């Protein structure tokens, strides 16, 4: 606190801009290139990183968390170069894709332990552990061992541990995979709450998560950024390319082969299909439809030349 006041007196107002700048970043695993000239600027609030499994999202997340070393380019987190790992660690909270904790530790113990590793003094840690457990709705389970928590509870513990040192940046990698709908909604709301005062990067392949939480997004595939902008812009891009047709069920296998099918609804002998296409499909009862984010995402992949097999079995 004193430090911040001192900073304001000396340098005035906002001491650092809350943003992450990624310029021309590349990364190799041995000879295999995993990231290709990534350029991104991520500001305060929720930022979604959308992409298929294996698109390079986790690699980028780990690089931002100073867990991986980039090969080329520049990354600065709130003005701090990524190479200054100790400073980056101090300002970053990270929830890995496969969050796990020592199974025999109690929930509050686990948080306290990770808080100690983050250098938080004991008295402060005690307050924060209680506050965070309350925030993530685990206060009643604080004496339970980690191994006794359900998948959703574990994920909430994961977000609590990532916030224990009150980081400026929060990186969450595929946090809702495997959660039931109720837990997923609860988790999204939690992320939106914590994003009010920090940068939150949400990496996921679940379009619904992005739709519910993020305004700014980037789409990745094969280690490249295919698209970046707002959700509205992405949807706007897909306008005129999402169609709905009502076809006989027996034609479905052929339709799936020929088109990118993003949704199907069967009624008696007919199926209403939602199709992503450059031009209007030559199918009966076809109408142009208002695009949704899922369709827009598929169209983005398709228009970027990705091999999209939305409906093929």
């Amino acid at each position, binding site marked *: 606190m004193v430090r911040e006041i001192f900073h304001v007196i000396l340098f005035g107002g906002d001491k650092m801009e809350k943003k992450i700048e990624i310029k021309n970043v590349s990364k190799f695993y041995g000879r295999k290139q995993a990231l290709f000239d990534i350029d991104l600027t991520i500001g305060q609030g929720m930022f979604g990183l959308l992409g298929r499994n294996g698109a390079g999202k986790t690699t980028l997340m780990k690089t931002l*968390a100073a867990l*991986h*070393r980039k090969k080329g380019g520049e990354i600065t987190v709130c003005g701090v170069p990524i190479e200054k790992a100790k400073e980056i660690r101090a300002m970053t909270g990270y929830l890995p894709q496969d969050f796990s904790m020592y199974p025999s*530790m109690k929930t509050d113990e686990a948080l306290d332990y*990770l808080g100690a*590793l983050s250098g938080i003094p004991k008295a402060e840690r005690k307050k924060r552990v209680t506050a965070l457990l309350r925030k993530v709705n685990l206060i009643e389970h604080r004496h339970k061992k980690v191994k006794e928590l359900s998948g959703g509870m574990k994920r909430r513990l994961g977000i609590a*541990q990532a916030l224990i040192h009150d980081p400026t940046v929060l990186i969450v990698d595929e946090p809702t995979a495997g959660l039931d709908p109720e837990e997923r909604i609860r988790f999204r709301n939690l992320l939106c709450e914590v994003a009010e005062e920090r940068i939150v990067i949400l990496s996921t392949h679940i379009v619904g998560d992005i739709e519910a939480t993020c305004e700014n997004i980037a789409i990745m595939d094969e280690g490249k950024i295919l698209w970046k902008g707002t959700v509205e812009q992405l949807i706007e891009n897909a306008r005129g390319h999402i169609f709905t047709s009502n076809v006989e069920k027996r034609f479905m296998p052929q339709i799936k082969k020929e088109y990118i099918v993003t949704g199907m609804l069967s009624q008696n002998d007919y199926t209403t299909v939602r199709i992503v296409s450059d031009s209007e499909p030559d199918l009966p009862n076809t109408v142009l439809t208002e695009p949704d984010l899922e369709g827009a995402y598929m169209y983005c992949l398709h228009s970027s030349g990705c091999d999209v097999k939305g409906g093929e079995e």
Partner: protein
Amino acid sequence: MLFGKECRRILTSLTFIIYCFVVGLFFVSQYIEENKGDPYIPDEKISEDHDVIMNGAVGNLANEYLANNYICYPYGFYKSVRLNEDDSQKVEECLLEVTGLTHDELMDIRDSGEHYYVEHGLQETMYYEIGELPVSDTITYERFCELMGQVDDILGGGSSYKVEDLVVTYSYVPMTEEDREAVISDLYEKDRVAGGYARLFSDYVGIDLGIMPVFVAAALVSADRRKRVSDLIYTRKISSLKLIFTRYAALVTMMFIPVILCMIAAAIQLIKYFDFNDLALYRMFTLPTFWLLPQLMIVTAVAMIVTEVFSSGIAILLQFAWWFSSIMASGAKLSGSISKFDLVCRHNTVFGRDEFMLSRNDFIFNRIFFFIAAIVITAITAYVYELKRGGRFHGIRLFGKDSIFRHKA
């Protein structure tokens, strides 16, 4: 405090409970049970008499030379050495110089006695009953040691002619009643009883501490990877140096606590069987701490670095090999000879203070060396950890799909 939390993690781990059980069981069965009542007094003693040493060594060398079968223990392992003609000739030259005999005189002695056969595995070796051989009047002890050193070199090391081991191998003489009284007197006056028992205690517990800590250390270090917690820990603010040294200190502290409890039990047993006024009880704590703590530290440090570097349980195999060779190397002589780099120092008797003191400087060097080496190795471990958490090193995999032995297309 992080140290306390790491101690708690160790305390609740299964490997630590097993460690405590094994250390405790070994201590009770080997030390407590064997040291109830009066101490056992050996039948022989070390004389340090040069004539005794030279006579003993010459007799054995002549026997082995004539049979061309030398029993050696290179790296602690039994080996029967048979020399070619050239090397045999060189050994003979040494033998002749020490005895002052000529080749013909030696052969006459050989032929004048009986011979007998001894089986060594599938081979039979013929030995001669040659009686006691003379030692030349003109040879000095220094020259004798030089020649024995040459013989040891010819044999490839590990023989009973190794200069450092000549005293403890060849100087034993039967104890007289006066000797027995002197031994008891040394125990009471020089060692104040507790000193002698402290050496025996350290000898037994040292065997445990040469291997058991590796299990606890490897389990703790590999827990992050096994429980998939590594990334969570890596992204914390704490420095690698602080984290690794805190974990190391917690491991050493927790693993030394059972040893301290054993020391207390050993001290209580001394009070039970000896007059309290005869005891310098503090020695039951000081000597074992100096003896055992560096050993625990080096085993723990090596286990940590190997586990970090190889990301596998290879530390257990390596430590077992080191421990086993150290035990085997000292196996032939359970007391009196501690070299500069023995991991497990042996002195398997309550007596023999003077004998132990012969190696005192090497013993002190040994323990200080391992103490410093342990600290240095831990610092290197912290560096390796920092490389790993920054994605600059991912460990060397010996097995699995990322194995370094796997062909990469």
